[in-house]
């Protein structure tokens, strides 16, 4: 029986359709789950994806109210049991606010956060690349990627800067929690590639067990060529099949699917 993926929707979530499309494109049995869904039905999923948006209008802080939503009880329970949890953008903010990552020393409280971009504190929408900075197998969701894989995505956030106390950041960097860093198209990690002032150049972090991944930019928004931001899109113009060919962002979802198939 195929594993079922619940794509969670809070009031204010806005990227669920793209996320659903990417999950289904890689063969995942996925469905949208609203915040008022039957709790036992939510618990029955084998994995959870928290999409982007502005859950609860980002009231108090980005992700803070959603982190305490009833749905997250099922996600916490599932993560503790080893289920896979992928948070994208606002979903990543929810994951950090809920303490699901990094979870140093088994902590269940928030040890880090994605907060206001620096230096200007402004919303940014820009195409980015992220590079896998851990051994693929360190995180189940990245296990099928190649070492150092470079994935295209769209950064689209006002609060994407990883922030934590320096000791926590040191451990995130040294102890294998820093899953992806921003890079250029060639995979070179440079300060210019970081769109938001994120500490460590972090685009994504994982948890101790490696079953949770919180990624700020949107790989599902660069899952097909028509969404991509280089010459390949221009070359595909006028050719529908080329436009609809998968792009690099789909790789993360393929890796998720492989992890769930194991």
């Amino acid at each position, binding site marked *: 029986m195929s594993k079922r993926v619940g794509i969670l929707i809070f009031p204010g979530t806005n990227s669920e359709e793209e996320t659903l499309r990417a999950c289904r494109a890689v063969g995942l049995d996925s469905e949208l789950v609203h915040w008022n869904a039957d709790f036992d039905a939510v618990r029955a999923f084998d994995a959870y994806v928290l999409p982007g948006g502005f859950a609860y209008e980002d009231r*108090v802080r980005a992700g803070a109210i959603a982190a305490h939503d009833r749905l997250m009880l099922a996600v916490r329970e599932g993560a503790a049991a080893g289920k896979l949890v992928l948070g994208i953008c606002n979903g990543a903010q929810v994951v950090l606010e809920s303490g699901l990552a990094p979870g140093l020393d088994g902590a269940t409280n*928030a040890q880090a956060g994605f907060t206001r971009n620096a230096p200007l504190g402004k919303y940014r929408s820009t195409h980015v690349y992220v590079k896998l900075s851990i051994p693929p197998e360190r995180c189940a969701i990245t296990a099928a990627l190649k070492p150092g894989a470079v994935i295209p995505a769209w950064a689209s956030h006002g609060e994407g800067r990883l922030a934590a*106390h320096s000791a926590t950041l040191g451990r995130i960097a040294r102890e294998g929690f820093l899953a992806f860093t921003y890079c250029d198209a060639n995979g070179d990690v440079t300060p210019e590639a970081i769109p938001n002032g994120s500490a460590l150049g972090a685009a994504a972090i994982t948890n101790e067990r490696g079953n949770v991944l919180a990624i700020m930019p949107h790989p599902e928004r660069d899952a097909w060529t028509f969404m991509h931001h280089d010459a390949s899109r221009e070359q595909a113009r006028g050719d529908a099949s080329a436009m609809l060919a998968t792009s690099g962002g789909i790789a993360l979802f393929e890796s998720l699917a492989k992890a769930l198939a194991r």
Partner: protein
Amino acid sequence: MTVTRCVEVALTIPDNEAETALATLRRLGVELAELRRADLYRVELDPAQEDTVVATLRDLETIYNPNKHSLRVRADGKPQAGELWVEELQSESRSSAAAARAGQVRIAGRFLPGVTRIERFTAWRMLENGGEAAGPEVVARAAQTLLCNPAFQKATVR
């Protein structure tokens, strides 16, 4: 010589953010009758420039909209009973020392004459049944539970 003033900007229309925070805190076991929220600008300034600075802040529509906000100046520089101040660490709202030395402290692009320092907080005021200010333990619990992420924010309680 400088003095410290707090400019408090609060909504006069229903504050959905405070209502959501209150409902969430109650669900998490923090018993409160009321929760109020305000933006707070703590300013160190030359007292001779106080009226000008307040007028400048009052003139900034990104900070104060007379159709939906109240603005008042507080002489205290720290939280009152039942109040929690949350400040973002490494915040852009903190005036830089260099800007202060140059006498060029700005907010929302506007020069604030006579200001040597400005800090922005979110002030949460908590009331228990009967309108009493919540005790410090309740305020601290509200901060720990929801209102402050200590990874990048600092909570100040009276």
